[in-house]
Protein backbone atom coordinates (compact mmCIF):
# COMPACT_ATOMS: atom_id res chain seq x y z
CA UNK A 1 0.00 0.00 0.00
CA UNK A 2 2.74 2.38 0.97
CA UNK A 3 4.64 1.79 -2.34
CA UNK A 4 1.46 2.25 -4.41
CA UNK A 5 0.49 5.37 -2.47
CA UNK A 6 4.09 6.65 -2.96
CA UNK A 7 3.66 5.92 -6.67
CA UNK A 8 0.44 7.95 -6.74
CA UNK A 9 2.01 10.87 -4.94
CA UNK A 10 4.66 11.09 -7.66
CA UNK A 11 2.20 10.50 -10.52
CA UNK A 12 0.47 13.88 -10.51
CA UNK A 13 3.59 16.09 -10.20
CA UNK A 14 5.39 13.88 -12.74
CA UNK A 15 2.59 14.22 -15.30
CA UNK A 16 2.41 17.96 -14.71
CA UNK A 17 6.14 18.41 -15.22
CA UNK A 18 6.06 16.23 -18.34
CA UNK A 19 3.16 18.25 -19.78
CA UNK A 20 4.89 21.56 -19.07
CA UNK A 21 8.13 20.29 -20.64
CA UNK A 22 6.22 19.10 -23.72
CA UNK A 23 4.36 22.39 -24.12
CA UNK A 24 7.63 24.25 -23.62
CA UNK A 25 9.29 22.18 -26.33
CA UNK A 26 6.39 22.77 -28.73
CA UNK A 27 6.51 26.51 -28.01
CA UNK A 28 10.29 26.60 -28.51
CA UNK A 29 9.88 24.76 -31.81
CA UNK A 30 7.22 27.26 -32.88
CA UNK A 31 9.43 30.23 -31.94
CA UNK A 32 12.27 28.63 -33.95
CA UNK A 33 9.96 28.17 -36.99
CA UNK A 34 8.67 31.73 -36.76
CA UNK A 35 12.27 33.03 -36.48
CA UNK A 36 13.18 31.10 -39.64
CA UNK A 37 10.21 32.68 -41.42
CA UNK A 38 11.22 36.18 -40.27
CA UNK A 39 14.82 35.61 -41.49
CA UNK A 40 13.51 34.35 -44.84
CA UNK A 41 11.24 37.38 -45.20
CA UNK A 42 14.12 39.74 -44.38
CA UNK A 43 16.00 38.15 -47.30
CA UNK A 44 12.98 39.01 -49.45
CA UNK A 45 11.91 35.39 -49.71
CA UNK A 46 8.22 34.91 -48.86
CA UNK A 47 7.46 31.42 -47.51
CA UNK A 48 4.73 29.71 -49.50
CA UNK A 49 1.56 27.96 -48.42
CA UNK A 50 2.38 24.91 -46.27
CA UNK A 51 -0.43 23.26 -44.30
CA UNK A 52 0.91 21.70 -41.08
CA UNK A 53 -0.28 19.38 -38.30
CA UNK A 54 -1.22 22.35 -36.14
CA UNK A 55 -3.63 23.64 -38.81
CA UNK A 56 -5.25 20.18 -39.04
CA UNK A 57 -5.44 20.00 -35.25
CA UNK A 58 -7.14 23.44 -35.14
CA UNK A 59 -9.74 22.10 -37.57
CA UNK A 60 -10.76 19.50 -34.97
CA UNK A 61 -11.28 22.00 -32.14
CA UNK A 62 -14.71 23.55 -31.28
CA UNK A 63 -13.31 27.01 -32.03
CA UNK A 64 -16.71 28.77 -31.94
CA UNK A 65 -17.41 27.42 -28.46
CA UNK A 66 -13.89 28.35 -27.34
CA UNK A 67 -14.48 31.85 -28.77
CA UNK A 68 -17.75 32.25 -26.87
CA UNK A 69 -16.11 31.03 -23.66
CA UNK A 70 -13.30 33.54 -24.20
CA UNK A 71 -15.93 36.24 -24.69
CA UNK A 72 -17.68 35.27 -21.44
CA UNK A 73 -14.37 35.46 -19.60
CA UNK A 74 -13.66 38.89 -21.12
CA UNK A 75 -17.12 40.09 -20.09
CA UNK A 76 -16.50 39.55 -16.37
CA UNK A 77 -16.84 42.90 -14.59
CA UNK A 78 -13.57 43.88 -12.90
CA UNK A 79 -13.24 45.72 -9.58
CA UNK A 80 -12.68 49.42 -10.35
CA UNK A 81 -9.29 49.52 -8.63
CA UNK A 82 -8.03 46.54 -10.67
CA UNK A 83 -9.05 47.88 -14.10
CA UNK A 84 -6.07 50.17 -14.83
CA UNK A 85 -3.59 47.36 -13.98
CA UNK A 86 -5.36 44.79 -16.18
CA UNK A 87 -5.77 47.14 -19.14
CA UNK A 88 -2.19 48.41 -18.87
CA UNK A 89 -0.96 44.80 -18.86
CA UNK A 90 -3.02 44.11 -22.00
CA UNK A 91 -1.71 47.30 -23.62
CA UNK A 92 1.87 46.31 -22.84
CA UNK A 93 1.40 42.77 -24.15
CA UNK A 94 -0.30 43.87 -27.38
CA UNK A 95 1.25 47.29 -27.95
CA UNK A 96 -1.96 49.31 -27.55
CA UNK A 97 -1.59 53.09 -27.31
CA UNK A 98 -3.36 54.08 -24.08
CA UNK A 99 -2.81 57.78 -24.82
CA UNK A 100 -5.59 57.58 -27.43
CA UNK A 101 -8.25 55.85 -25.27
CA UNK A 102 -11.39 58.01 -25.05
CA UNK A 103 -12.27 57.36 -21.37
CA UNK A 104 -10.30 56.89 -18.12
CA UNK A 105 -9.37 53.19 -17.75
CA UNK A 106 -11.61 52.86 -14.68
CA UNK A 107 -14.61 53.63 -16.91
CA UNK A 108 -14.39 50.30 -18.77
CA UNK A 109 -16.24 47.71 -16.61
CA UNK A 110 -14.75 44.66 -18.37
CA UNK A 111 -11.98 43.67 -20.72
CA UNK A 112 -14.60 43.31 -23.47
CA UNK A 113 -15.66 46.95 -23.02
CA UNK A 114 -12.03 48.04 -23.11
CA UNK A 115 -11.44 45.94 -26.25
CA UNK A 116 -14.24 47.79 -28.10
CA UNK A 117 -13.04 51.20 -26.82
CA UNK A 118 -13.43 54.38 -28.82
CA UNK A 119 -10.54 56.77 -29.37
CA UNK A 120 -10.33 60.38 -28.23
CA UNK A 121 -11.81 62.94 -30.61
CA UNK A 122 -9.29 63.93 -33.29
CA UNK A 123 -7.07 60.85 -32.94
CA UNK A 124 -7.90 59.67 -36.45
CA UNK A 125 -8.19 62.68 -38.84
CA UNK A 126 -10.09 61.71 -42.01
CA UNK A 127 -8.40 62.47 -45.37
CA UNK A 128 -11.23 64.44 -46.95
CA UNK A 129 -9.81 64.52 -50.46
CA UNK A 130 -12.94 63.49 -52.36
CA UNK A 131 -10.80 61.40 -54.75
CA UNK A 132 -9.33 59.17 -52.07
CA UNK A 133 -10.49 56.00 -50.38
CA UNK A 134 -9.46 55.81 -46.72
CA UNK A 135 -8.52 52.91 -44.49
CA UNK A 136 -11.61 51.65 -42.62
CA UNK A 137 -9.50 50.26 -39.75
CA UNK A 138 -6.18 50.46 -37.92
CA UNK A 139 -3.97 47.58 -38.96
CA UNK A 140 -1.29 46.17 -41.22
CA UNK A 141 -1.57 46.14 -45.03
CA UNK A 142 -1.42 42.42 -45.87
CA UNK A 143 -2.15 42.53 -49.61
CA UNK A 144 -3.68 44.85 -52.17
CA UNK A 145 -3.93 45.16 -55.94
CA UNK A 146 -6.15 44.99 -58.99
CA UNK A 147 -8.23 41.90 -59.80
CA UNK A 148 -7.34 41.06 -63.37
CA UNK A 149 -8.35 37.57 -64.46
CA UNK A 150 -12.08 36.81 -64.89
CA UNK A 151 -11.92 34.36 -61.96
CA UNK A 152 -11.13 37.26 -59.59
CA UNK A 153 -8.82 35.43 -57.15
CA UNK A 154 -6.95 37.07 -54.24
CA UNK A 155 -3.63 35.56 -53.15
CA UNK A 156 -3.86 34.47 -49.48
CA UNK A 157 -0.15 33.70 -49.44
CA UNK A 158 2.30 32.74 -52.16
CA UNK A 159 1.09 29.47 -53.60
CA UNK A 160 -2.52 29.74 -52.49
CA UNK A 161 -5.38 32.01 -53.65
CA UNK A 162 -9.07 32.19 -52.77
CA UNK A 163 -11.96 33.39 -54.90
CA UNK A 164 -13.53 36.78 -54.26
CA UNK A 165 -17.01 35.50 -55.04
CA UNK A 166 -16.55 32.73 -52.44
CA UNK A 167 -15.50 35.40 -49.93
CA UNK A 168 -18.38 37.80 -50.72
CA UNK A 169 -21.04 35.18 -51.44
CA UNK A 170 -22.39 33.60 -54.60
CA UNK A 171 -25.33 36.06 -54.49
CA UNK A 172 -22.87 38.92 -54.63
CA UNK A 173 -23.40 41.51 -57.35
CA UNK A 174 -19.65 41.71 -57.79
CA UNK A 175 -18.97 43.21 -61.24
CA UNK A 176 -17.23 40.84 -63.66
CA UNK A 177 -13.59 41.75 -64.07
CA UNK A 178 -12.88 43.98 -67.13
CA UNK A 179 -15.82 42.67 -69.08
CA UNK A 180 -14.99 43.57 -72.70
CA UNK A 181 -18.53 43.07 -73.90
CA UNK A 182 -21.89 44.66 -72.94
CA UNK A 183 -20.60 48.02 -71.76
CA UNK A 184 -24.12 49.31 -72.25
CA UNK A 185 -25.40 46.85 -69.64
CA UNK A 186 -23.04 48.19 -67.00
CA UNK A 187 -23.98 51.77 -67.92
CA UNK A 188 -27.60 50.66 -67.54
CA UNK A 189 -26.72 49.37 -64.07
CA UNK A 190 -24.89 52.62 -63.33
CA UNK A 191 -27.90 54.65 -64.51
CA UNK A 192 -30.11 52.71 -62.15
CA UNK A 193 -27.61 53.27 -59.35
CA UNK A 194 -28.05 56.96 -59.97
CA UNK A 195 -31.78 56.85 -60.43
CA UNK A 196 -32.84 56.47 -56.86
CA UNK A 197 -36.56 56.58 -57.50
CA UNK A 198 -36.71 53.00 -58.80
CA UNK A 199 -37.27 51.59 -55.33
CA UNK A 200 -38.41 48.24 -56.68
CA UNK A 201 -35.27 47.85 -58.81
CA UNK A 202 -33.03 46.95 -55.91
CA UNK A 203 -35.68 44.73 -54.39
CA UNK A 204 -36.13 42.95 -57.73
CA UNK A 205 -32.40 42.95 -58.37
CA UNK A 206 -31.59 40.84 -55.39
CA UNK A 207 -34.45 38.42 -55.75
CA UNK A 208 -34.44 37.73 -59.49
CA UNK A 209 -31.61 35.59 -60.89
CA UNK A 210 -31.27 38.05 -63.80
CA UNK A 211 -29.37 40.53 -61.64
CA UNK A 212 -27.64 38.01 -59.53
CA UNK A 213 -25.24 37.15 -62.30
CA UNK A 214 -22.08 39.26 -61.96
CA UNK A 215 -22.57 42.70 -63.41
CA UNK A 216 -19.84 43.27 -66.06
CA UNK A 217 -17.47 46.06 -65.18
CA UNK A 218 -17.52 48.94 -67.65
CA UNK A 219 -14.35 48.97 -69.80
CA UNK A 220 -12.83 51.95 -67.92
CA UNK A 221 -13.43 50.59 -64.44
CA UNK A 222 -11.13 48.16 -62.69
CA UNK A 223 -11.81 46.03 -59.64
CA UNK A 224 -9.39 46.54 -56.76
CA UNK A 225 -8.93 44.87 -53.37
CA UNK A 226 -7.11 45.53 -50.11
CA UNK A 227 -6.61 43.11 -47.16
CA UNK A 228 -5.97 44.66 -43.72
CA UNK A 229 -5.00 42.66 -40.59
CA UNK A 230 -5.89 43.96 -37.11
CA UNK A 231 -3.73 42.63 -34.25
CA UNK A 232 -5.29 42.09 -30.80
CA UNK A 233 -4.01 45.42 -29.45
CA UNK A 234 -5.38 47.51 -32.31
CA UNK A 235 -8.40 49.81 -32.19
CA UNK A 236 -11.20 47.52 -33.39
CA UNK A 237 -13.94 49.76 -34.76
CA UNK A 238 -14.61 49.82 -38.51
CA UNK A 239 -15.26 53.11 -40.31
CA UNK A 240 -16.59 53.85 -43.78
CA UNK A 241 -13.85 54.08 -46.46
CA UNK A 242 -15.91 56.47 -48.66
CA UNK A 243 -19.38 57.99 -48.94
CA UNK A 244 -21.44 55.03 -50.09
CA UNK A 245 -24.84 53.30 -50.02
CA UNK A 246 -24.88 49.96 -48.22
CA UNK A 247 -27.50 47.85 -49.99
CA UNK A 248 -26.99 44.31 -48.72
CA UNK A 249 -25.62 42.64 -45.60
CA UNK A 250 -24.55 38.98 -45.82
CA UNK A 251 -23.62 37.08 -42.61
CA UNK A 252 -21.62 33.86 -43.03
CA UNK A 253 -21.74 31.69 -39.93
CA UNK A 254 -18.33 30.06 -40.39
CA UNK A 255 -15.31 28.72 -38.50
CA UNK A 256 -13.25 30.89 -36.18
CA UNK A 257 -9.67 30.03 -37.04
CA UNK A 258 -6.98 32.46 -35.91
CA UNK A 259 -6.13 34.86 -38.78
CA UNK A 260 -2.54 35.76 -37.83
CA UNK A 261 0.30 35.55 -40.35
CA UNK A 262 1.06 31.93 -39.49
CA UNK A 263 -2.59 30.92 -40.04
CA UNK A 264 -2.60 32.52 -43.50
CA UNK A 265 0.39 30.33 -44.38
CA UNK A 266 -1.08 27.06 -43.11
CA UNK A 267 -4.92 27.13 -43.29
CA UNK A 268 -6.56 26.70 -46.70
CA UNK A 269 -9.27 29.24 -47.66
CA UNK A 270 -8.89 30.88 -44.25
CA UNK A 271 -10.99 34.01 -44.98
CA UNK A 272 -13.64 32.00 -46.87
CA UNK A 273 -13.98 29.50 -44.00
CA UNK A 274 -14.21 32.03 -41.17
CA UNK A 275 -17.26 33.74 -39.67
CA UNK A 276 -17.71 37.06 -41.43
CA UNK A 277 -20.11 39.86 -42.30
CA UNK A 278 -20.06 41.29 -45.83
CA UNK A 279 -21.56 44.70 -46.67
CA UNK A 280 -22.16 45.39 -50.36
CA UNK A 281 -23.21 48.60 -52.05
CA UNK A 282 -22.04 51.30 -54.39
CA UNK A 283 -20.04 54.50 -54.27
CA UNK A 284 -19.41 57.26 -56.82
CA UNK A 285 -17.12 54.96 -58.83
CA UNK A 286 -19.37 51.90 -58.77
CA UNK A 287 -19.30 48.68 -56.73
CA UNK A 288 -17.94 48.52 -53.15
CA UNK A 289 -17.85 45.63 -50.66
CA UNK A 290 -16.39 45.43 -47.15
CA UNK A 291 -15.86 42.01 -45.52
CA UNK A 292 -15.26 41.97 -41.74
CA UNK A 293 -13.74 38.58 -40.87
CA UNK A 294 -13.70 37.24 -37.30
CA UNK A 295 -11.07 35.10 -35.56
CA UNK A 296 -10.89 32.78 -32.54
CA UNK A 297 -10.46 35.61 -30.05
CA UNK A 298 -12.82 37.92 -31.96
CA UNK A 299 -16.02 36.07 -32.80
CA UNK A 300 -18.36 39.06 -32.66
CA UNK A 301 -18.99 41.56 -35.43
CA UNK A 302 -21.50 44.30 -34.53
CA UNK A 303 -23.12 46.62 -37.10
CA UNK A 304 -24.28 50.16 -36.21
CA UNK A 305 -26.64 50.10 -39.18
CA UNK A 306 -28.19 46.84 -37.87
CA UNK A 307 -27.65 46.65 -34.06
CA UNK A 308 -29.80 43.52 -33.72
CA UNK A 309 -27.39 41.36 -35.80
CA UNK A 310 -25.64 38.71 -33.67
CA UNK A 311 -22.70 36.61 -34.92
CA UNK A 312 -20.97 33.50 -33.49
CA UNK A 313 -24.21 32.07 -32.11
CA UNK A 314 -24.37 28.37 -31.12
CA UNK A 315 -25.03 26.28 -34.24
CA UNK A 316 -27.00 23.07 -34.60
CA UNK A 317 -24.51 20.32 -35.51
CA UNK A 318 -26.14 19.28 -38.79
CA UNK A 319 -26.15 22.83 -40.07
CA UNK A 320 -22.38 22.97 -40.24
CA UNK A 321 -22.24 24.71 -43.59
CA UNK A 322 -25.41 26.79 -43.51
CA UNK A 323 -25.86 29.28 -46.40
CA UNK A 324 -25.18 32.95 -45.61
CA UNK A 325 -28.06 34.88 -44.09
CA UNK A 326 -28.80 37.95 -46.22
CA UNK A 327 -30.64 41.22 -45.67
CA UNK A 328 -31.38 43.90 -48.24
CA UNK A 329 -31.44 47.38 -46.63
CA UNK A 330 -34.53 49.09 -47.85
CA UNK A 331 -34.38 52.70 -46.63
CA UNK A 332 -35.86 54.66 -49.64
CA UNK A 333 -34.74 51.85 -51.96
CA UNK A 334 -31.13 53.02 -51.87
CA UNK A 335 -30.08 51.17 -48.72
CA UNK A 336 -28.21 52.86 -45.83
CA UNK A 337 -26.20 55.91 -46.82
CA UNK A 338 -22.90 56.06 -44.91
CA UNK A 339 -20.46 58.99 -44.91
CA UNK A 340 -16.68 58.61 -45.29
CA UNK A 341 -15.09 58.10 -41.85
CA UNK A 342 -18.41 57.29 -40.12
CA UNK A 343 -18.40 54.30 -37.74
CA UNK A 344 -20.02 51.32 -39.48
CA UNK A 345 -19.20 48.28 -37.33
CA UNK A 346 -17.00 46.91 -34.56
CA UNK A 347 -15.18 43.69 -33.83
CA UNK A 348 -15.49 42.26 -30.34
CA UNK A 349 -14.63 39.18 -28.30
CA UNK A 350 -17.01 36.25 -27.84
Amino acid at each position, binding site marked *: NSSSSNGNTFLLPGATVATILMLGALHARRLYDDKKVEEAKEKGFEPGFQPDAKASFLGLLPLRTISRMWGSLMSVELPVKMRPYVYRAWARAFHSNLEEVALPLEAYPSMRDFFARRLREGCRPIDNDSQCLISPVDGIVV*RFGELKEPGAMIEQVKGFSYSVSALLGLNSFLPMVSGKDVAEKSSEVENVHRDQTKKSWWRVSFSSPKFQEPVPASPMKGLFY*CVLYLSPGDYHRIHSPVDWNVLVRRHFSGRLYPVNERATRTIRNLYVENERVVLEGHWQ*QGYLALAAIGATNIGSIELYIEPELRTNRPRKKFLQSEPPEERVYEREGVGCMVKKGEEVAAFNTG
Partner: protein
Amino acid sequence: STVVLVFQAPVAKSTKDNTPSTDFRFNIKRGDRIHVGEALGR
Protein backbone atom coordinates in the same frame (compact mmCIF):
# COMPACT_ATOMS: atom_id res chain seq x y z
CA SER B 1 -9.36 39.94 -37.28
CA THR B 2 -9.22 41.00 -40.91
CA VAL B 3 -11.03 43.43 -43.21
CA VAL B 4 -11.11 42.92 -46.98
CA LEU B 5 -12.21 45.79 -49.26
CA VAL B 6 -13.26 45.09 -52.88
CA PHE B 7 -14.19 48.11 -54.99
CA GLN B 8 -14.53 49.47 -58.51
CA ALA B 9 -12.39 52.45 -59.51
CA PRO B 10 -11.17 54.03 -62.77
CA VAL B 11 -8.29 52.23 -64.52
CA ALA B 12 -5.56 53.88 -66.60
CA LYS B 13 -6.79 55.39 -69.85
CA SER B 14 -4.39 55.54 -72.79
CA THR B 15 -4.00 59.32 -72.73
CA LYS B 16 -2.65 60.32 -76.18
CA ASP B 17 -2.72 64.03 -75.45
CA ASN B 18 -0.96 63.55 -72.11
CA THR B 19 -3.95 64.73 -70.08
CA PRO B 20 -3.45 63.43 -66.54
CA SER B 21 -4.93 59.93 -66.33
CA THR B 22 -7.70 59.43 -63.78
CA ASP B 23 -6.76 55.90 -62.85
CA PHE B 24 -6.88 54.77 -59.25
CA ARG B 25 -3.52 54.23 -57.52
CA PHE B 26 -2.76 52.75 -54.13
CA ASN B 27 -0.34 54.76 -52.00
CA ILE B 28 0.55 51.98 -49.54
CA LYS B 29 3.07 49.12 -49.41
CA ARG B 30 2.64 45.61 -48.06
CA GLY B 31 3.49 45.48 -44.37
CA ASP B 32 2.65 49.18 -43.84
CA ARG B 33 0.93 50.08 -40.60
CA ILE B 34 -2.18 52.12 -41.47
CA HIS B 35 -4.75 53.98 -39.39
CA VAL B 36 -8.42 54.80 -39.82
CA GLY B 37 -8.81 57.87 -42.02
CA GLU B 38 -5.48 57.61 -43.84
CA ALA B 39 -5.71 57.32 -47.64
CA LEU B 40 -5.27 53.81 -49.06
CA GLY B 41 -5.23 55.23 -52.56
CA ARG B 42 -6.49 58.02 -54.80
